[in-house]
């Protein structure tokens, strides 16, 4: 697998990167992944310590892409209706009126998702999966495009409800931003808070355009039989590997392929090469693998070993 920085050749992605990087020091790689996830019509789980710029990243992306932005701060007393919205009886009209919750936005940041109770989590995840919310028996379609960035704190455990493995599968990617490099951090420290600047980021895209790009990727990027074979062999290996309790699901493989296609598009190719698959694999596959025993590091090693085993050209 590769951890080399992605090169981007597609002009609109290039432009977006150039547009955003002044306000997001040293987060290029994460930014590209977020964009890839959006163009692949998937959701993202950001696992990081507080204070590393998760919110900044989400707001900046929402601005640049011209998306409505909603934010949910999860606590253990958060109710499902706090997420989805609720019907309120209007006495003057004599009827119920629907008040949409924060989920009715194009881009929703769900902070510390593991602090919400399972009931609320499941309401949220249902909305993510079905792109709709059901309130009092009535179903409301969520706006399109719809994209969730959920964050969770990997260290804090008390009073949390960790996401069950089955729910992890709903996130297309799970990434972490990590600490910024020294030079980037210096820049951040020098510039100080840039909350105001974030407000000033102009929109480069519109929701319609994003839908068009998503459809374009789906339609135009070729996946040859060889790539399918490659991916099938990979998933089979994860399923038959001794150390792994549950391998990659079909949804996982679909997500990986979708992201590989988007990456190919970002690099101005109209066909997928194995490197696209490899580049996206860690962020797509690691949180889906369930090991029999061992740590996160062992997971990574196992996956690396599988990738080192499967020949690229058959």
């Amino acid at each position, binding site marked *: 697998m590769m951890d080399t920085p992605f090169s981007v050749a597609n002009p609109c992605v290039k432009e977006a990167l150039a547009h955003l990087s002044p306000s997001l020091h040293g987060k290029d790689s994460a930014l590209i992944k977020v964009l890839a996830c959006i163009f692949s019509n998937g959701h993202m789980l950001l696992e990081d310590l507080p204070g590393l710029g998760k919110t900044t990243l989400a707001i900046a992306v929402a601005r640049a892409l011209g998306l409505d932005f909603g934010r949910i701060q999860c606590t253990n007393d958060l109710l499902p209706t706090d997420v989805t919205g609720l019907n309120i009886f209007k006495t003057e009209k004599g009827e119920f009126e629907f008040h949409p919750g924060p989920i009715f936005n194009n881009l929703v940041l769900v902070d510390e998702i593991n602090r919400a109770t399972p009931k609320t989590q499941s309401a949220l995840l249902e909305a993510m999966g079905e792109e709709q919310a059901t309130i009092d028996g009535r179903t409301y379609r969520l706006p399109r495009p719809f994209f969730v960035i959920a964050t969770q704190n990997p260290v804090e455990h008390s009073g949390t409800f960790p996401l069950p493995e089955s729910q992890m599968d709903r996130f297309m990617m799970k990434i972490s931003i990590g600490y910024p490099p020294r030079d980037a951090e210096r820049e951040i420290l020098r510039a100080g808070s840039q909350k105001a600047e974030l407000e000033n980021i102009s929109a480069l895209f519109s929701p319609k355009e994003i839908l068009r790009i998503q459809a374009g990727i789906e339609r135009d990027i070729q996946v*040859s039989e060889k790539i399918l074979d490659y991916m099938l062999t990979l998933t089979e290996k994860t399923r038959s590997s001794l150390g792994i309790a549950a391998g990659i699901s079909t949804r996982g493989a679909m997500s990986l392929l979708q992201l590989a296609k988007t990456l190919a598009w970002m690099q101005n190719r109209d*066909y997928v090469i194995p490197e696209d698959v490899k580049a996206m694999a860690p962020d797509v596959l690691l949180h889906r693998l369930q090991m029999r025993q061992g740590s996160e590091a062992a997971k990574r090693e196992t996956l690396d070993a599988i990738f080192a085993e499967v020949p690229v*050209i058959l």
Partner: protein
Amino acid sequence: MSSAAIPAKKFPLKSILNASVSLIAVLSFFMGRELVSAGYTWGFLGLMLAAFAIERFEFPHPPRLLINLVTVAVLGAVLGRVRRSYVVEALMESLLLMIAVKMLEDRKPRDYVQVVLLGLGMVVCYALLSAEKDFIIYCFGTGLAATLTLLLSAWFEKEPSALLTARELGQLFARIGVFFAAMLPLCLALFFGMPRTTAPIFGMRSQFGSASIGFSDQVRLGDVSVIQANSRLAFRAEMVKLEPQTPYWRGVVLDIFDGRAWLASRNTRGPFIPDTSAPRVEQEISLEPGNRGHFFALDQPLAVIGADVIVDGGGVFRHRSQTMGRRLQYRAVSILSSRMRPSPEDIEPDKRRCLQLPANFMPHLRVLTAGMTAGLDDREKIDAIMRFFSDFSYSTEGLPSAWDALDRFIFADKRGNCEYFASAMAVMLRMAGVPARMVSGYRGGIYNEAGNYYIVQEQNAHVWVEAWDEGAAAWVRRDPTPPGQGAGSGLSAYDTLALYLDLLDYQWSKLIVAYNWETQMEMLQSLREIIRNPRASLTPTRDGFLRLGDALSVPIAILGALAACGALFYLVRALSTRRPEMALLAEFSRVMGRRGYRRRESEGLSEFLARVADPHLRALALPFVRSFEEHYYGGRSLNSETLRSSLEKIKRLGKR
């Protein structure tokens, strides 16, 4: 740079393909010419010329439907003639016809492959019918042309209008050489392993008005006018080389003459008295299967040791059964002498039998003989009659063919083969009162120095005279036939090669074909001995040990043949699935490997390229990687030019 300026001469792929297919057709024609009736071969030639004209002057090809209908009709006619004794010939005829049809058509890639298969079919049929040395030429020729055609037709399918430079052509031929070298074991296996029809499985070809030379246990004059040379193997005799005398191989004694034919009497004789001063020669003889019933051994055979031997006496040994369907191995001990002293009780009856002539037989010959031998003693009479034939010549053509053949031979034609010479001499001796008989067997043979054995072919079949020498009380061998038969001395390189191939064939038949129960027991015995006493068995019983080696070489040879077949199968499979882009990729890997960069199996090309530290090399390799990926993953048509030019650049970088 300069090569780009001067346009190199290019050859269209299609014409090379046509040439190689034509070669297959021509070879098939020659194979057919020997074995198939003339009408078919000439018809084939006509169709070939028509095909050539169509190709050369771009006449329209005849419509496929018409061709197919005609083919079906003619095939029906050919196959209707199939009889039990006429299977392979009919098969060859139909193969020839189908090749001709394929040549007439506007060929598609699969048609080329079909011609290759038909041509190979011809080779197999030819191998079934003929044991000629030419088989090697046909087999190799067809094999080479078939390999070339297969390779080219695969190419033709992808790039029908491709032009090849002389250099590419050279590389192609080099590659074919390699493939063909791998195919060689199959050719050799076909040559040695094919059941060539010495046994009457497929029926011998016979042509009217002619016969081929071969051993026979009766001699009849005047039946045929032409005798064809026949290089079919009769037997091989492992023994010391006889220098300078020509070996005579004794078969059967013909002592009865009925005026037209010489026959063997059914009398048995006692053992002859061996001449103790003459050298003894031991032979190990491997007799090819055939319709004979006689054991052959060097004149004069003292004993024949083998299975089912009946001793007729007088140096004649018969097999229990009249026909021998399988190869026989036996040992013989002979005394190298031209005189044979019979046991005393046989002398008188033999003498009596060997003076008999039909009443009033050829009176003018009797007059001539009487004049020639008047007043001479027995020995002088024999010499005088021998001298009489000095102005006669040897011939196998234009033989007198009538009831009075002997008369014509002596008084008019004065040429004939051994049967005429020996008959005439024996008759004249009997007229002169000297008991005489004929012996039928073989004379001469080619000595294979590499294997220490004589190769005796059917064309070595011979008849000579034994005359009674009263003074010595012995039968004396006299051969009136002038040399001229099998006198080829001075072997060409081709013959030397053939001798080596024959040695291989001999070893094959000795070790593989004659590998039987006895050999197995011998091997088991040796094995047991080794296990029981390994130290002792190593040195003293060297013979047994060697024999074990011989015996073991059989399974080893079989394993080797299997391995060769397996390798061939693998190669053919690899050949059929190997795509041009994979060849280019292998070349790329090789070239990059030379620069110190090896791609792992699990590594993508772009990933690999990113690893290349040298920016110059990376820039040169980038077009290859891009173009390859575009084709391999992007489904674009293969851009060989970009790939090749990128490869060339990397190679040139290596040279700098």
